[in-house]
């Protein structure tokens, strides 16, 4: 589903990605770990070409993302959902308008189909009552849920999550993580999840990689990584680091 080969990205003299290679199989959930500033979000943004990498190849559904023209790229983006760290809801639009936005502009759905999809995703994230609220009226957890609903409303094949539980209390974070897993199963999506949250990763991940010094330093299942004798991983997954590292 996703294949990244030898990806490089730097900002001025700061090398962020230095030859990242990875692949994600269809319907697999891959979690990306790494310390702050190791380029996890940059990796996600390069994947969907919100940022242009300096070098490397990115294949999504067999298409070379970096060689697509803007029209082809937008077609591909219809199959990709993205949950931003702050949910990125359009704050001048109501929840309904936020959800309708990608449908109205990218698909020739009639009003009934749009209403059906809006109600269905709101039901999936358990926020039917929020339909006419403005983003400013929602809590952090509700914003994440609506952001998630907006991302899946087009029924994407690939979902990208940038720190889905950051800024949430542990209970809400667990709820969001469980919701992500449920939706992934219901929609049969492939997911790439950038997170610092071990609990979130334990719930979601089939497979995980660790980014360190610009490249994939470790990979395996969560259990393999957590139980590893490697000093970096032992330090990274220690309770103390997690407590302090949690935003």
């Amino acid at each position, binding site marked *: 589903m996703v294949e990244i080969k030898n990806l490089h990205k730097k900002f001025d003299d700061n090398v962020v990605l230095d030859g990242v290679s990875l692949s994600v199989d269809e319907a697999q959930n891959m979690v990306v770990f790494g310390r702050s500033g190791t380029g996890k979000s940059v990796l996600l943004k390069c994947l969907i070409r919100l940022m242009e990498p300096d070098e490397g190849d990115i294949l999504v559904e067999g298409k070379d993302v970096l060689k697509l023209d803007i029209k082809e790229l937008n077609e591909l983006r219809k199959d990709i959902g993205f949950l931003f760290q702050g949910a*990125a809801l359009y*704050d*001048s639009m109501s929840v309904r308008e936020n959800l309708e*936005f990608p449908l109205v502009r990218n698909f020739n759905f009639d009003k009934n189909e749009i209403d059906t999809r809006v109600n269905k995703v709101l039901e999936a994230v358990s926020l039917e009552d929020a339909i006419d609220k403005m983003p400013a009226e929602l809590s952090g957890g509700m914003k994440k849920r609506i952001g998630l609903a907006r991302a899946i409303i087009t029924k994407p094949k690939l979902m990208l999550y940038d720190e889905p539980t950051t800024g949430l209390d542990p209970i809400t974070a667990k709820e969001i993580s469980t919701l992500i897993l449920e939706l992934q199963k219901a929609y049969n999506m492939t997911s790439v999840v950038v997170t610092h949250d071990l609990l979130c990763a334990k719930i979601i991940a089939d497979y995980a990689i660790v980014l360190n010094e610009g490249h994939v330093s470790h990979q395996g299942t969560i259990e393999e990584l957590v139980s590893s004798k490697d000093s970096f991983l032992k330090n990274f997954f220690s309770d103390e680091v997690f407590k302090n590292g949690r935003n």
Partner: protein
Amino acid sequence: MKEMFIPPYEVHEIRKHMIELGMKTLPIVGVTGFIIGLVMTMQLQPVLQRFGAEAFLPGSIGITIVRELGPVITALIFAGRVSSGIGAELGSMRVTEQIDAMEVSGVNPFRFLVVTRVFATTFILPILTVYVIFIALFGGYIAVVLVQNMTWQYYVDRVVFAVAFADAVPGVMKTFVFGFIVGIVGAYLGFNAKNGTEGVGRASTTSVVIASLLILIFDMVLVKLTLWLWPAVK
């Protein structure tokens, strides 16, 4: 520029912005127009009286307001109110990743956010200018009435007699350019805002300064161009 003419046109968004921006600016430009008309007449009246040319007062007011003061004052107030607002709004959308979210959803954010606002400012400013011209002329009349006995009918007749079509058209036409400047400057700076809230603040304040300066520079150029292309205005 190319993006402005390629379908699909976000007509609903353009209309929404025109109404919003127009309604938001209407009271402030109205009050400003009234005061400018009033004060300018109060200043002009004793000067004309000194030269025994009081009869030319309504005509002078009309020509000054229609040709220059109405369009430029409206554009400057509009820049202060709207360019900064657009800069702050789009800047805020940029730093909170809303523009990225739009791009990811396969929608061209430049067309949806920038083009619609530039269209709206370009076409709403001339309408506001015409409104301000009438309000300013009314303000001028109030100032005239305070110092001399003149009927509204006589005042309007003298204004209409003095202001030719050739005065009104370039005056209003140049506001299309001013409206475009207000929209494009605010939208460009907001759309490309960086560095979090600091960048949003910078986009907002810089928009006003640059838009105001460009309005004055383009006014100078357009006045010269008008006089050169359309000698009847002289």
